[in-house]
């Protein structure tokens, strides 16, 4: 059948506008016949991503969505039942087909499904907005002013625009005929705009009632934590709701007629996005057992978790869902059907599989989200996805690593242990709990068991620390998210800082008193993450066997298929640092000629470790036969004495006796070049408590003058050996203080009602971290290798960085073989570093 010829160009303006109106109606009809609006996929993806990425959130977490559903239903269901047809009639502008479409859209089922989806969006949004709501507590009035301002701006602007359009508009230069055309269109739109206002007014009305309710309740002490987020959420969601189309206003927005609404809506969405993103960072920072997600951008706690967790989860669910979502024709039944496989995966398969493989869901899902997301974003390969999903193999590898290294090497009984219970460093923190934290502002106790599981003594510094990394704390402060996040509320007493030496296998019961002081009493309860940090100086040790082969012999064996060269992996001691040594595929051919062979040393973070690691130095030990690293490499030869000297002799300790009326002494005072002051408080009388202990450290020659104050200091009368070592960290540039330089230390304190000032003592600055690292076991290994087994010690000539590859070129030739065909050497690399490991618990208290 031949289509009719196009109508001739309308001779009159009136007919032209009629045609124009007809075209617009047809276009709108085409738009509306899409049964499922595109935007509907995004909240679904968002919800699922949230669930997949955040991980382990029990299903009842979503119970809170019910109030939203009830709330929106109360508004829109009556509207749909009572006024649905009327809205459709008005919105359609008299067009029969459009009216039918609108009636269908305003059917109860259609409205209900949109309500459910919008409720999820609202709920998830609220979760992300919590930190902002908390921040807003202190500025409640400003928030209300902003809200009211927005309303005031929206209201007259819209009303005014409608009015002037009804009154032929202001732009008279267009001419009357053109304005007539606009009028035709405006009449079409007025009915729609009218509906929009109606709904908008309704929401504003509810919001105003809510605000009024807040003022009423706040007088009675109702928690801001509930009201403010709720009201703000209603406002934001209502804006989104109206914009995105539950009232079909999406199709009625006068895009070309100007006005403040699109701009304001755009601004709201930008604001909303900003709030969600920053809020998600804050939530990520607060998520207690956030796993250490290795990767190019992950830095300790915080950003790696929310960013990669959420984004990875999002990418994953987007791809997974779109596989099913995209191929099914648009339609409500198809839409819900398309959700089924994704729901099965997220809510059924994941929770079903993960416990079987003995991993807690909570920490692993974000990792999975990240891994999957990262893999997909890099490769887009289904094979890689499945590889990523091979958790069991991954676990087996981790388990095997533990068993070969930790269990066999260090003699830990590993049978039946699960990886997450195994130690990743020399010290294990367990049973970290709080007691007596009922009311905020009252002191309560925290205890923890700290156990040295290494076979050498370790000096540790245990303290309660800020649950955020400095980086995260800075951001939270910048966003003013300091109250709700416990950044300022947690008060840590100086007694919580303890320095002690743990013997091998020795356990220590850590305890201290602390407090949570809420800054805002409008909240009813407060939960804070408490983190115990144990800082220690550790080392990682790795060994690589290098096998050389005579070149001709190698070739003949290779020709016969008896020899295949392969990379030999280095064995690495367990710990948060994986120090790797690599070289060429082995066995390595040697001929008469000298050639340069490269040894590579690099370190990475172990996937299973958490905490903060600061490498201090790398060392490389080569057998004497291999000679020294060539100067073009990153290592230079040193003697052990040059590195460590004699730390014991270099460490200068002094006592201050007979202070505070003659019975207080400060023994074994030593000040180290990394800013640490160690001492043992002692009394020859009864044990007592000193208040306000001030320690001044000054050096005229170094132009250094620092002081620190301790609120309290317990002084015992135990023997010198049994007294607990106290440490105070004087923050100072490390390069500034040099071992051997003179320094003066002065103690002053209050005992009872009186203040005392002790005599100053002069001592020399002791060597810093490296001396503590080189004590004990490491020292014995290195001295054995260098003296007994003739190893040449090399030190990295620059300050080490994680993940960076350092090289040591050496010259090799056939003489190494000593007339044989095969010979092996063992080479070693050592990384010394300070390691801060954490234990975490959550404390909740009621505000009184």
């Amino acid at each position, binding site marked *: 059948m031949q289509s009719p010829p196009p109508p001739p160009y309308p001779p009159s303006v009136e007919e032209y506008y009629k045609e124009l109106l007809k075209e617009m109606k047809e276009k709108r009809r085409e738009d509306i016949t899409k049964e499922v609006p595109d935007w509907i996929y995004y909240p679904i993806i968002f919800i699922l991503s949230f669930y997949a990425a955040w991980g382990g959130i029990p299903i009842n977490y979503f119970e809170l969505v019910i109030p939203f559903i009830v709330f929106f239903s109360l508004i829109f269901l009556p509207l749909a039942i009572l006024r649905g047809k009327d809205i459709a009639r008005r919105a359609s502008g008299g067009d029969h087909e459009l009216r039918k479409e609108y009636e269908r859209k305003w059917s109860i089922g259609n409205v209900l499904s949109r309500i459910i989806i919008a409720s999820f969006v609202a709920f998830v949004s609220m979760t992300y907005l919590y930190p902002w709501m908390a921040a807003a507590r202190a500025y409640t009035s400003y928030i209300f002013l902003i809200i009211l301002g927005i309303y005031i701006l929206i209201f007259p602007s819209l009303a005014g625009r409608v009015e002037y359009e009804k009154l032929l508009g202001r732009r008279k230069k267009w001419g009357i005929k053109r304005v007539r055309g606009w009028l035709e269109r405006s009449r079409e739109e007025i009915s729609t705009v009218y509906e929009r206002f109606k709904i908008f007014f309704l929401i504003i009305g509810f919001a105003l009632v809510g605000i009024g309710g807040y003022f009423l309740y706040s007088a009675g002490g109702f928690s801001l934590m509930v009201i403010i987020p709720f009201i703000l959420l209603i406002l934001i969601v209502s804006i989104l709701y109206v914009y995105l189309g539950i009232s079909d206003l999406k199709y009625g927005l006068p895009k070309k007629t100007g006005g403040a609404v699109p701009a304001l809506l755009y601004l709201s969405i930008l604001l909303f996005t900003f709030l969600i993103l920053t809020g998600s960072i804050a939530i990520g920072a607060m998520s207690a057992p956030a796993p250490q997600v290795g990767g190019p951008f992950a830095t300790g706690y915080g950003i790696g978790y929310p960013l990669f967790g959420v984004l990875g989860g999002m990418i994953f669910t987007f791809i997974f869902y779109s596989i099913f979502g995209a191929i099914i024709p648009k339609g409500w039944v198809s839409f819900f059907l398309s959700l089924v496989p994704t729901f099965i995966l997220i809510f059924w398969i994941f929770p079903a599989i993960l416990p079987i493989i003995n991993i807690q869901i909570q920490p692993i899902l974000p990792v999975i989200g990240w891994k999957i997301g990262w893999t997909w974003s890099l490769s887009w390969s289904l094979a890689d996805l499945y590889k990523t999903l091979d958790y069991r193999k991954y676990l087996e590898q981790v388990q095997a690593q533990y068993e*070969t*290294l930790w269990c*066999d*090497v*260090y*003699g830990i009984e590993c049978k039946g242990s699960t990886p997450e219970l195994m130690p990743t460093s020399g010290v294990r923190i367990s049973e970290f709990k709080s007691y007596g934290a009922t009311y905020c502002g009252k002191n309560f106790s925290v205890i923890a068991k700290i156990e040295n599981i290494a*076979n050498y003594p370790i000096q540790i510094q245990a303290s309660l620390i800020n649950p955020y990394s400095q980086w995260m704390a800075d951001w939270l402060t910048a966003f003013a998210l300091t109250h709700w996040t416990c950044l300022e509320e947690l008060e840590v007493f100086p007694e919580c800082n303890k320095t002690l030496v743990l013997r*091998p296998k020795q356990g220590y019961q850590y305890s201290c008193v602390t407090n949570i002081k809420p800054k805002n009493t409008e909240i009813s309860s407060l939960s804070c993450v408490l983190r115990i940090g144990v800082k220690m100086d550790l080392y990682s*040790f*790795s*060994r690589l*066997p290098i*096998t050389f082969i005579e070149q001709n012999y190698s070739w*003949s*064996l290779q*020709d*016969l*298929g*008896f020899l295949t060269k392969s990379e030999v992996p280095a*064995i690495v*001691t367990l710990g948060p640092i994986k120090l790797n040594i690599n070289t060429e595929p082995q066995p390595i051919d040697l001929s008469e000629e000298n050639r340069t062979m490269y040894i590579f040393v690099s370190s990475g973070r172990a996937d299973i470790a958490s905490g903060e690691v600061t490498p201090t130095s790398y060392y490389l030990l080569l057998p004497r036969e291999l000679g020294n690293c060539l100067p073009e490499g990153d290592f230079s030869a040193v003697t052990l004495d040059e590195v460590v000297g004699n730390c014991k002799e270099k460490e200068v300790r002094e006592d201050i006796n007979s202070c505070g009326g003659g019975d207080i002494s400060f023994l074994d005072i030593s000040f180290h070049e990394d800013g640490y002051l160690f001492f043992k408080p002692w009394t020859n009388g009864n044990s007592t408590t000193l208040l306000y202990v001030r320690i001044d450290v000054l050096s005229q020659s170094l132009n250094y003058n620092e002081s620190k104050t301790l609120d309290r200091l317990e002084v015992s009368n135990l023997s010198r050996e049994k007294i607990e070592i106290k440490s105070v960290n004087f923050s100072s540039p490390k390069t500034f203080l040099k071992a051997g330089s003179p320094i003066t230390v002065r103690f002053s304190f209050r005992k009872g009602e009186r203040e005392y000032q002790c005599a100053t003592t002069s001592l020399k600055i002791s060597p810093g971290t490296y001396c503590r690292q080189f004590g004990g076991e490491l020292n*014995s*290994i290195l001295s*054995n*290798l260098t003296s*007994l*087994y003739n190893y040449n010690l090399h030190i990295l000539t620059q300050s080490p960085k994680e993940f960076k590859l350092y090289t040591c070129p050496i010259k090799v030739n056939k003489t190494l073989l*000593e*007339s*044989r*065909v*095969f*010979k*092996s*050497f*063992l080479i*070693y690399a050592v990384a010394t570093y300070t390691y801060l490991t954490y234990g975490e618990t959550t404390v909740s208290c009621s505000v009184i």
Partner: protein
Amino acid sequence: MRRRIRNHFSIFFYLLILLLSLGCIAKEEIPQSYEDIKVLFAGSKISRVAPDTNTFVVITIMNNALGGNATSVIVSLENVEPFRIVEGGKEYSNPSERRKGSPYGYTCDDGKEVRTHCMEGIMPGEIIDFFWILKVPSKEEIGKMVYDHQMYYTVKYNYVAKFIYRITAINEEELIRGSRVSNSIIYSTPSPIKFEGKTPDNYVVFSTNQSRESYLIFSLSVIPEARGTVEGDLSITVFYPSQEYMPSEIENWIKVSEGFSRNISAIELATSPEFYLPLNLPPDLRPFINLDFRIELNYTFIKNGNFMITVVPIKI
């Protein structure tokens, strides 16, 4: 009573079968045809050893009973360090030669390195253990971490392998009558060198009234499963059935009594070379003649292998 005895007998019979099938039969070491010398065992009987202790490694070899004498058998360890060899109560870490003879009775150890043991000869069917006491590296030397050490060994020996290749020559009249013959190896000693013989066309044909000529064609190659190489030159001697079948001379071959001989380098052998030996066939009235060529290969063969020793630091 009788039933109980029958039951016991059944159990006994079952155990006997089990023992025979799984125990004795499974553990019996039967050398393959390419194994003139077979390495029965190499390594340490204790696979995981403690640091700073003594352990021992043993390489057990057997001379195939179907072969000849193996002479100058030298068994050496390679890649010993960081283990050290202990001999006569003394630790040797560097290449060190023995000044005195072997304390273990190996016949030609004198003057050899301690990592090497030597026997002047091993009779067919004889089994010899070559063993070394090793000092395991200390905990410090291996960084107090589990250490898997791959040790290599070589077994070098002189051997003479023999083959008899029978060519059944056929009278041309018999051939016309429809008779057919074939050639085959009728005797061989075990050897890692594979001998394959053939003749041009399908048959060596002689005449009743005139002389004819033909060729013995054979190739040599090293069998890959033997896991070894020939060291130096391999000497091959081909003995003809009698003087009358021998040509006066063959290029590149040296005439010996009733045969020819030549050396083949290891590189040449690696290419599986083919050799043509002329064969004179004088007139003969017999319908068939069996021509038995005796081939002797004299070579020095080196077998390679490796084994693993794991040092586990003592648990604390």
